[in-house]
């Protein structure tokens, strides 16, 4: 039988089932650079203001670690600098998540088996998933290029930018095709994919900041910055992405053809015959189900925090050597010192990371419900409130632990560099932990959706993306204040005092209460 038989039919099936999800990704990923470029066109029309941006951020390794280097003062190049890495991370995330969703998850639920018994070739499911993700990437890249052209940016640069985004998607689609073969469960495959993405991020950041430059060449995310869209447009860099994608995809197909349906290359261990005494109630169960993911997320956040803490040192050096620049930076960061601004900025990134964790963990409630695993628990003497509280407690306490660990590591690495560990530890971890109330507002929103509008729980992710846009782009794109105020993170700046904290905690509590009330009164989802 033709191993690819049925690929197109499967592709159509996926498109029919999943088009809202795909279109959301397309809108976010294509919208990001186009909106940013559009705002740059308006806000930084004259060369002088753009040169100011370059002078402020261009030579600063800390910002190079965050966002990548600036290669040119044109609008296009500034867009690529400001949004390229964040967009690249999101595009990679999309590619990995979609690949695993349409391969390993399908196998885990047994739907793949149903299809496999029909006239479908051995390679067809993987090929269909690749087609979908690569097609989505092509659509995103094409829209980005067209959107940038529409803003009358140079043709070559727009094309390079679009192709650069597309290249990131195909590389991580191929990464997804491999990790999906390795493990038994979708969760582990996702963890593995995220770890690879994290490594790519760290390598690029190290290569772009003060580390050896070749490190950036080891990262597919680094290839985007090294493509230098709107500057040199080094087309040959795209060959790296093409080659790596081809090799990885072939590896994925080879692994797929060598294993049984449902099995992974890495085989699962046996479990214990008896439950440990800790597995004695809903909280013990939630902890058991979520602890591995908490460890993974915390480790990822710790690496990023260490990276930021290390590069933060350069901000100070830069400032002491250049009083003129220091003045510009002071003006840019308001009354606070530029290092504090840097930490406020990175604390915001860590907080978004922790929020993503807490949304995912809170929405585990919905996953358990939809997979009929909540039913046997709620048919025992477990009150609904306890079931709900168990996962939310992990989400709330877990995100606090992540922020604490991130703050301590960022403060300690920075403190070690400037010779003031104790002082920096307290002040930096205070800044990072101070973000917790905003994180919990997002957690509360996820809980409220679960209780009141369970079908709309994905909106919690939309909320998080909105906060990401406001937090990352709100200042530089000069969003109106009321729009900035809609994000809970806006209100937690240094010296904002106790009132915003109290208000945000109050909002979080109200949202949580609404969620509990809704879940108590509603029917459980039935299959």
């Amino acid at each position, binding site marked *: 039988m033709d191993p690819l038989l049925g690929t197109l039919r499967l592709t159509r099936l996926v498109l029919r089932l999943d088009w809202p999800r795909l279109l959301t990704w397309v809108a976010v990923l294509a919208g990001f650079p186009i909106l940013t470029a559009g705002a740059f066109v308006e806000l930084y029309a004259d060369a002088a203001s753009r040169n100011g941006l370059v002078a402020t951020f261009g030579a600063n390794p800390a910002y190079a670690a965050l966002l990548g280097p600036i290669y040119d003062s044109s609008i296009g190049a500034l867009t690529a600098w400001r949004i390229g890495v964040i967009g690249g991370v999101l595009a990679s995330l999309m590619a990995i998540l979609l690949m695993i969703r349409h391969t390993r998850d399908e196998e885990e639920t047994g739907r793949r088996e149903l299809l496999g018994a029909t006239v479908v070739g051995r390679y067809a499911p993987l090929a269909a998933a690749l087609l979908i993700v690569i097609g989505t990437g092509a659509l995103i890249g094409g829209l980005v290029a067209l959107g940038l052209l529409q803003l009358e940016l140079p043709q070559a640069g727009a094309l390079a930018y679009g192709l650069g985004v597309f290249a990131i998607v195909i590389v991580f689609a191929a990464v997804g095709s491999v990790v999906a073969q390795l493990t038994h469960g979708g969760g582990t495959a996702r963890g593995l994919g995220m770890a690879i993405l994290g490594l790519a991020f760290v390598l690029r950041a190290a290569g772009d900041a003060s580390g050896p430059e070749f490190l950036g060449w080891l990262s597919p995310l680094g290839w985007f910055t090294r493509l230098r869209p709107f500057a040199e447009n080094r087309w040959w860099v795209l060959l790296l992405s093409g080659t790596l994608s081809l090799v990885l995809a072939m590896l994925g197909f080879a692994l797929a053809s060598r294993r049984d349906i449902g099995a992974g290359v890495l085989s699962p261990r046996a*479990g214990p015959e008896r439950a440990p005494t800790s597995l004695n109630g809903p909280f013990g*169960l939630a902890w058991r189900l979520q602890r591995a993911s908490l460890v993974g997320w915390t480790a990822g956040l710790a690496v990023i925090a260490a990276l930021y803490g290390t590069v933060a040192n350069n901000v100070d050096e830069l400032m002491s050597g250049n009083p003129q620049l220091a003045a510009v930076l002071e003006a840019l960061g308001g009354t606070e010192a530029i290092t504090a601004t840097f930490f406020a900025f990175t604390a915001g990134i860590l907080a978004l990371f922790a929020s993503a964790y807490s949304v995912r963990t809170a929405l585990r409630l919905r996953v358990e419900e939809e997979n009929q695993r909540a039913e046997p628990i709620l048919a025992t003497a477990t009150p609904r409130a306890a079931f709900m509280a168990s996962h939310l407690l992990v989400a709330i306490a877990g995100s606090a632990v992540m922020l604490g660990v991130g703050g301590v590591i960022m403060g300690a690495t920075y403190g070690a560099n400037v010779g003031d560990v104790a002082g920096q530890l307290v002040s930096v971890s205070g800044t990072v932990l101070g973000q917790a109330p905003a994180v919990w507002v997002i957690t509360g929103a996820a809980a409220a959706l679960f209780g009141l509008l369970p079908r709309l729980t994905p909106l919690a992710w939309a909320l998080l993306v909105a906060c990401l846009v406001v937090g990352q782009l709100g200042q530089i794109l000069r969003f109106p204040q009321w729009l900035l105020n809609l994000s809970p993170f806006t209100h937690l700046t240094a010296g904002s005092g106790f009132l915003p904290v109290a208000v945000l905690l109050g909002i979080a509590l109200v949202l949580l209460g609404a969620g509990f009330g809704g879940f108590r009164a509603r029917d459980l989802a039935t299959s």
Partner: protein
Amino acid sequence: MVKRFGSTVALDGLDLSVARGEIHGFLGPNGSGKTTTIRILLGLLRQDGGAATLLGGDPWRDATELHRRVAYVPGDVSLWPNLSGGEVIDLLGRLRGGLDEKRRRALLERFQLDPAKLGRTYSKGNRQKVALIAALASNVELLILDEPTGGLDPLMEAEFRSVIAEDRREGRTVLLSSHILSEVEALCDRISIIREGQTVETGTLAELRHLTRTNVTAEVAVDPTPLAHLPGIYDVRVDNHRVSFEVDGDQLSVALAELARLGTSSLVSHPPTLEELFLRHYRQAPPL
């Protein structure tokens, strides 16, 4: 009880009563509302009309208290991929408030389940066994079993029957939803048959049989055609001197008198099998 999901009516005035200490068979075609009924009884869904009482309490309001006295086996058991079967049995037992250690060991033995395997590696039958052992090993008054033997092989099914029979002797109440007629016939004291959210029959198997037709086949001396004109006689088939027909329970003596008059030389009669009862109720057109 009445339960609607949007515009579809899942339960349309369903009636069900299960006496303490009995094993009650709960039968009905796919989609007739068995699982919905069970979920209401467990407080997982709330009925839109009517009332339900479980062990003297309100299944929605008193759910937590009642669930200490109830164990439930869903029809389609999904386990946590990373928890072993043994862990799930212990967890569900603890959540119900205790597990009989001796029974746990004995049941693992009888159902031949390896408790060290992870949830994702169990087959459907083995997942079913995990839920069954967890339910059967807990000290509860009432077992609610929703098609519990769906994935079990015949040996395991026989084991299930003997365990339930022992449970009955210990005075446990069982509500058993099932499609396996021999299982229901062997185990159940009373049965209820539902269709499209309504109860169509309820009673002991003997009562249901009594209410329904008996199959009769006889050899007679003369032409048996006149039989067909008697009231309460259906489906008459004549083949020379051999006649077979179905007769309503309350017309049986009239039919027998007529057979005697016709000079019967041999007679075979049997009550309807459960399968016949089933088919009759399942196929029946919905009342207008």
